[in-house]
């Protein structure tokens, strides 16, 4: 039987190399040992994903390595998330994410999701071809702090505006922070559609998301 320290080290190391079966095994082992779910999350999984993100940003890690590390963490989170919810541990924030209607590109979005999860966000991924009404339904269901619209094509970027209009119409505009991104998207375009935030890449998204949350929380005292 491993010690809690060994479990944490193992979770960190095996997430880093994307060994999903081993990460899942260690998660169960840790719980059997009576370890706190939030310790496994904050002391091992999140730091590991942060390191993955840092390596990706430096060009030391490549897309498949990001994806398998993200998958390894997601496997552990399936086990831990219900337990974390029970113990009332607060996530950094909740993020509803989707590629807009008409657009099927998802690699960039998936990388952003991994980085967000790695930073402690709970990410609800709606997938690709997400129609405005589907975003609205997800926002009503999950009450996220932030909603993210992703578009890879200059022709699908106008869906940002359509989504914004749908938010307005549903009376949800002020209850959620809106972030937009994707290869052709610029700060200028984000401003033009009235989004709250834009970021050029996955790690910038995490920084921007955290900053926007802080601004919002400073404005609205809990």
């Amino acid at each position: 039987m491993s010690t809690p320290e060994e479990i944490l080290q193992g979770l960190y190391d095996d997430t880093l190399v994307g060994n999903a079966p081993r990460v899942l095994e260690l998660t169960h082992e840790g719980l059997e040992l009576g370890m706190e779910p939030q310790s496994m999350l904050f002391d091992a999984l999140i730091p590991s994903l942060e390191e993955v993100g840092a390596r990706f940003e430096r060009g030391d890690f490549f897309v498949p390595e990001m994806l398998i590390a993200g998958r390894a963490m997601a496997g552990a989170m399936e086990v831990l998330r219900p337990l974390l919810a029970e113990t009332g541990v607060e996530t950094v924030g909740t993020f509803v994410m989707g590629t807009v209607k008409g657009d099927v590109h998802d690699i960039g979005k998936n990388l952003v999701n991994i980085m967000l999860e790695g930073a402690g966000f709970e990410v609800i991924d709606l997938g690709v071809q997400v129609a405005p009404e589907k975003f609205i339904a997800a926002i009503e269901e999950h009450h996220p702090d932030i909603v993210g619209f992703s578009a890879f094509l200059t022709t699908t970027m106008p869906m940002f505006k359509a989504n914004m209009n749908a938010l307005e119409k549903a009376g949800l505009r002020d209850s959620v922070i809106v972030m937009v991104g994707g290869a052709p998207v610029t700060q200028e375009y984000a401003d033009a559609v009235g989004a709250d935030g834009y970021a050029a890449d996955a790690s910038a998204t995490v920084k921007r998301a955290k900053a926007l949350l802080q601004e919002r929380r400073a404005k609205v005292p809990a």
Partner: protein
Amino acid sequence: MSGPVRATPKETVLRSASREVVIGHGRRFCLIGERINPTGRRIFQEQLRSGDLSAIERDVKAQVEGGADVLDINMGVPLTDEADLLERAIRMVQGLTDLPVCIDSSVVEALEAGLAAYEGRALVNSVTAEDERLAQVLPLVKKYDAAVIALPNDADEIPMEADKRLVLTGKIIDVATKEYGIDAADIVIDPLAMPIGADTSMVTTTLETMQRVRDEFGVNMTCGASNVSFGMPARHTLGAAYLPIAMYAGLTSAIMDARTPQIVDAVKAADLLLNHDEWGMAWIAAHRARQAEAV
């Protein structure tokens, strides 16, 4: 014993005012130079937004020198009049080179403006199997006597199985030929090359799609070659390995950056090895040209 009947290989003819390029199975691979495109290039975007198209000249020159046979022209700058930009870019490119063009936009009005401005037989990039897109783009292809790149995906998804891509390919060819009177030879299928880094099993699906599209329909095919290596190290090596394999599976052209000699050379070598370069005359000529340059 006889296998299934193979469809007759088709030839796609593109023309500028003074030059003809034929894409076909058994012919030398057609390189569609892709860099005349502002996506992801901030400075170029700013220039285009302020109406300055001068950077196009440099990009055209680089693609022509790299060995492009056709030039892809994309003017997708957000918050601009893309139709106006594309029309001006097409006029400009016609003055810079006699290579035929591939008019690249997902904005139907921009495609029409580009086609109207072009003196020749262009390739349109692109249409999908969605009914609405087919109804918007195919009439333009017919009206301006162009050829068109078609992607076998519909509104729901990019199909991950070759079977579904074949069904959608059949649908596109059916609609184009029967409803719009477009020759099947003028449909160039993009079998959807997906990044190997996102799923290492996807390239074999694409290769299977290519073989079956060639055998069942005989049409030409193209793909965004650089997609395959996205997110991976040593991208040019991957491109140089991918295209020869894809050529063997039936790919007859690719939209790629002609400024990558490693990939261009691999394609030329594959042309020779697949008997698309009779007696290796093009291969030898390229060698002589390099020798002459070195002197």
